[in-house]
Structures are given as structure tokens and as C-alpha cells.
């Protein structure tokens, strides 16, 4: 066996390993490597009460209830298929509003209500002036908060 041929074998073995690695990565991405779960994923999985997780989705229109006496807020996070009720007390980010994407971190209570320790607002990749947003919405081309 010549030096050249041995080199060829080594390169072939290396490339094969890289190929398998790439296949494994693609396979892993089909499963879940996530920063947060959607409400549907939450429903599909058996999550034990008290386990710290993150849930992401849109704040459902008309679901925000603020308690007058405290900072406690209740709202529903939805991915349009399933939804989960969230209770949170503390400072909310500027972008928090109905129809907006949020990621809440906390745990699911035994009653199915998610008690959040942290609420993060997620914004989509659309940037536009308010007038354009209004015009688009009037024309029915685009739903507010329809991204994500």
C-alpha cells in the first residue's frame, strides 16, 4: 500500500464520519432542541407539575386580566391550536400586549395554570411604521402579531 492510498483511506474515513455527523445533527433537529415549548407541545407531553419549563406563544386577544390591588396579571398563551392559562406577578416588558409573542418561564401548577416567574416578550422579524401597519391591517393583508 502506498502512502497516497493510505492518505486516501484516511480522507474517506474522515468524510464518512463528517457525513454521519451531519445526518445525526439533522435527525436531532427534527426532534426538540428548544428554548421553549408551544402550548400544543406542552399538551402532547407529560409535564410533571412543578417542573421548570419555558412556554412560548401569542397572548390571546382579550385574555389579559389585571388585578387592581397588585401587580398580578393573568393571561392566556396560545398557538391558535391549544392554549394555556398563565398567572404572573411582576414587571412586564414594554412589548407585552394582546396578540404579541411571549416566552414565559415557570412551572405548571396541579390545576393546569402555569405560574410564571419571568415573562419575556418575543418580537417577530417585521419592522414597519405604525401607519403602514394600520393600512396593511385595514386591507386585510396581514394580521397583527400573526408572525412567529
Amino acid at each position, binding site marked *: 500500500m502506498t502512502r497516497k492510498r493510505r492518505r486516501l483511506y484516511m480522507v474517506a474515513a474522515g*468524510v464518512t464520519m463528517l457525513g454521519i455527523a451531519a445526518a*445525526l445533527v439533522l435527525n436531532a433537529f427534527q426532534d426538540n432542541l428548544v428554548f421553549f415549548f408551544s402550548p400544543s407541545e406542552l399538551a402532547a407531553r407529560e409535564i*410533571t407539575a412543578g417542573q421548570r419549563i419555558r412556554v412560548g406563544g401569542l397572548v390571546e386577544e382579550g385574555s389579559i386580566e389585571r388585578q387592581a390591588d397588585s401587580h398580578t396579571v393573568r393571561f392566556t398563551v396560545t398557538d391558535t391550536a391549544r392554549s394555556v392559562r398563565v398567572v404572573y406577578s411582576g414587571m412586564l416588558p414594554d412589548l407585552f400586549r394582546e396578540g404579541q409573542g411571549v416566552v414565559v418561564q415557570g412551572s405548571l401548577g396541579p390545576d393546569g395554570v402555569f405560574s410564571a416567574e419571568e415573562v419575556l416578550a418575543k418580537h417577530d422579524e417585521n419592522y414597519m411604521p405604525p401607519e403602514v401597519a394600520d393600512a396593511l391591517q385595514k386591507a386585510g393583508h396581514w394580521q397583527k402579531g400573526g408572525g412567529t
Partner: protein
Amino acid sequence: MRTGRRRRDPLGVRAFGTVLARDLRLARRQGGDAGLAVLFFILGTVLVPLGIGPEGALLSRIGAGLLWVMALLAALLSLDRLFQSDWEDGSLDLIVLSPLPLSMTVLAKVTAHWLVTGLPMTLVSPVLAVLLNIPPDQIGLVALTLLLGTPTLSLIGSVGAALTVGARRGGVLLTLLILPLYIPVLIFGAGSVDAAVAGPGAKSHLLMMTAMLLAALPLCPWAAAAALRHALD
């Protein structure tokens, strides 16, 4: 190595074994760096419950991450000697001249490094996991992630070790170069236990760790060999 033997060793298996056996023998005779790394892994892990208090729930939550951080640091401790000592006593020049491709020599040395650091750490990890109050059904998973992850640590580390051969303050520099590259291994290693506890299962994390190992296996020895060749120019 005699020329007669080279002809009967076409794939370099025997030469590979020679380098591996030499490094293992050095590790055993000198007894130093590698054993110290494992001791550091054990002592460092034991110190944490003493420092933050023996609260079981807290320990079991941070346990896997803690073991992983300690494994990372312990792997780093012994890495700066990987090529440095051979470079200092001149044997590196001879190793480079041997008929075995330099990347295979690197792979043999990395294997030796893993056998005396990563493997013992993996083997003691279940005991430490019990001390850290990690749930019994997760202990096997922790050991499995270490088994998959520590070879990757040794492989990535070999590139840093080769780059810093002959450098001023090589040890500190090595840490600075290698720790950022260790971050993905840490994320998936420690994250797999969280994923298994939280529900989605650790399968995708384990796949990612296997993928990282398979990618590092050809690439890291190749890069380390290139760095060594430049170091000896």
C-alpha cells in the same frame, strides 16, 4: 522503528499502538498530571455541596451541570502537557519524523489522554452523582453523556495544546482558547439531563453529542497536526 517492521504495518496500526502505549506508560510511571486531573474532578465536585449547603433539591437540580463544568476544567488541567513535555525533551521532533501520519500520532496521544482522564472521570461520575443527589434514573444518563462528551473534550483540547506548544504562559492561554470551543459540548451534555427531566427526552441531545464526537474525530487531529508542524518549523 525498524524499516522491516514498517512494511508489515501498512495501516500504521502497530505504530499507533506504540505511541498509545508509550503515552500510557509515561502517564503511569510519572503518575502525575492525569491522576491529578481525576482527583481535581472528584475534589472540586465534593467542594460544591460544602460551599452552597447540602440542600438536596438544589443539588439535584444543578448536579449534572456541575459535574460537566468540573469535567471540563479537569480535562483542561492536564491538556497543556499533551505536547509540551514532548516538545521540551525533543521527542516531538522524532515523532513527527516517524512514518505514521502526524494526525494519527495526535489521535493516539489523544486516545491516551482520554484513557487516563476522561474515562476515569466517567467511571467515578455515578458515585459523585449519588453525592450530588441526582435522581437514580438520571445517573446512567449523566455517565453516558460524559462517555460521549469527554473524548470530544480531549480532541478539541489537542488543537489548543498543539497551538500553544512553546507559547509563553501556555497553560492560561490554552484555557482561554479552548473553553469557548467547549461551550457546545457543555450545553448539550448538561442540557440532556434537563431535557430528560423536563419531558422531551434526551435523544436529540445525545444525537448532537455523538455528531460532535464524529465531527471532531477527523477534524481535530488534522488541525492539531497542522499546528504541530508549524510549531516545529
